[in-house]
């Protein structure tokens, strides 16, 4: 990451990484049914980076995200997250159904003791950012799937966390809506300077969004490959560069999946 110094020169690598993972392992279950979900993961995520974790279903992506979120403890290894508790978004919006959209977005602000005036102001700001200002008084069940994910994004942003973790947040939406939300997420990320860790099993989505793609292998989950994405933003999902990279990621994933089954057989 480049940092602007007071003397006007830019220096690189001054800021500590937003997330630092060293030799991280996580075992699930007991006895016969034990699964080594993650095995010796090493990962360094820079501040302000948009990182995608790409892998087949069941490879341990959610496990890794839960560990970074502090929702689960590693079996072994080291994990450091700068700037406190990260915000998390899931495939299910997980909005509180008893609260309105505005109250949902206000929830993390309340937890951090923000004054009512400050809450109102910030909620209005965030709802405008995700284009939901007209739906502040609605309840989650009155929203469409895409609107719910936008509300969940606004709520996650209300945490003012430095790191935003997203576990396949758009996987349940149709392609059109997903495309739209990719545009919005990119815009918001560029505006806020957040560090985003985005889990997906969709190579196109990874190519569309990421600065860097980490490809995970399955059983045990390991870092299999890493791609840096040098495509200018804002991007389009159908841009030739994005499609080409998506193709390469797909090929690599297929190799890994074949390799996994060969290894197991």
């Amino acid at each position, binding site marked *: 990451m480049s940092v602007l110094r007071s003397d006007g020169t830019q220096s690189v690598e001054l800021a500590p990484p937003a997330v630092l993972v060293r030799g991280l392992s996580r075992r699930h279950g007991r006895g016969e049914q034990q699964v080594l979900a993650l095995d010796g993961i090493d990962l360094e995520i820079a501040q302000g980076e948009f990182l995608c974790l790409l892998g087949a279903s069941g490879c341990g992506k959610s496990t890794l995200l839960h560990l970074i979120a502090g*929702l689960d403890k590693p079996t072994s290894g080291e994990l450091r997250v700068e700037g406190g508790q990260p915000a998390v978004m899931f495939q299910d919006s997980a909005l*509180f159904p*008893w609260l309105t959209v505005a109250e949902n977005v206000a929830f993390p602000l309340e937890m951090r003791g923000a004054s009512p005036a400050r809450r109102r102001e910030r909620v209005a700001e965030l709802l405008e950012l995700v284009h939901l200002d007209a739906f502040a008084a609605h309840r989650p*069940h009155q929203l469409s799937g895409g609107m719910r994910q936008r509300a969940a994004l606004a709520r996650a942003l209300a945490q003012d966390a430095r790191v935003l973790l997203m576990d396949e947040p758009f996987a349940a939406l149709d392609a059109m809506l997903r495309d739209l939300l990719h545009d919005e997420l990119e815009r918001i990320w560029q505006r806020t300077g957040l560090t985003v860790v985005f889990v997906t099993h969709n190579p196109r989505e990874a190519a569309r969004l990421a600065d860097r793609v980490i490809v995970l292998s399955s059983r045990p989950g390991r870092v299999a490959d890493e791609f840096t994405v040098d495509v200018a933003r804002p991007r389009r999902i159908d841009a030739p560069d994005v499609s080409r990279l998506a193709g390469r990621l797909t090929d690599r994933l297929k190799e890994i999946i074949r390799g996994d089954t060969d290894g197991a057989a």
Partner: protein
Amino acid sequence: MATLMAQPKSSESVAPRAFAGSREPTQSVSRSRRGVVAPVLAVVVALALWQLIVWSGWKPEWVLPGPLPVLRRLVEELVSGEVASAARITLARAALGMTIATLIGTSLGVCMAKSSWVRNALSGLIAGLQTMPSVSWFPLAILLFQLGEESIQFVVVLGAAPSIAVGLVSAVDHVPPLLVRVGRTMGARGFVLFRRVIFPAALPGYVAGLKQGWAFSWRSLMAGELMVFLADRPSIGARLHFARELSDAEGLLAWMIVVLSIGILVDLAVFGRLEHTLRARRGLAEEH
């Protein structure tokens, strides 16, 4: 919208329907009419059966009067204000008993939901208490508190509190873990997490427990008022008791209808309505 406009009867009758979805007017009218017609029909059938039994001459009319004299008597008691004054005494007891039972049942439920140790210790006992007929507590209650208000309250609370506790525990068990996880990442911990996330998420189930608690407490209260009747407090149970003593069959049946009606009314108008509102606000039931 184009496909929805196919074969319109008239453009103004179709267009609002397409947007209103299930809120289509004629359908909701017929549904609410069906909601009233069926129970009324059931009552009419029950009254007819009752009248048939009376006409069959199975029992003399002074033992089992027909519905007409009983309903006439019921109207008399209503007009004279007797029902209101008796109901006031009985419902005050019910309200006090439910309040105490809610406090105890809720505290127990919270402890059981929060501590697996407390839960292991108490769940068998509470399940047992739930199945135990509350009338069987009366001898002990009378021994402890004599024939007084306390005896009645003791049994009412023992009848309702276990259901309320069990309802809360099972409602907390069914809270989606994802909501709890999200609450945690947003900084809610410990009691704040319980009060702001787990309890609201469990609220519909908790109200269902309250509703069941009410059914138990109403039964216990009637049993209590039949066993412990205080001369200066003409409650509904006392009316039933005196009607039997005086062989006043019409009065007896009229007061039984009062008991039945209050039970249904509180169940539907208070707890049923609360439950429905909660569920509707969360999109779990149709809003009215």
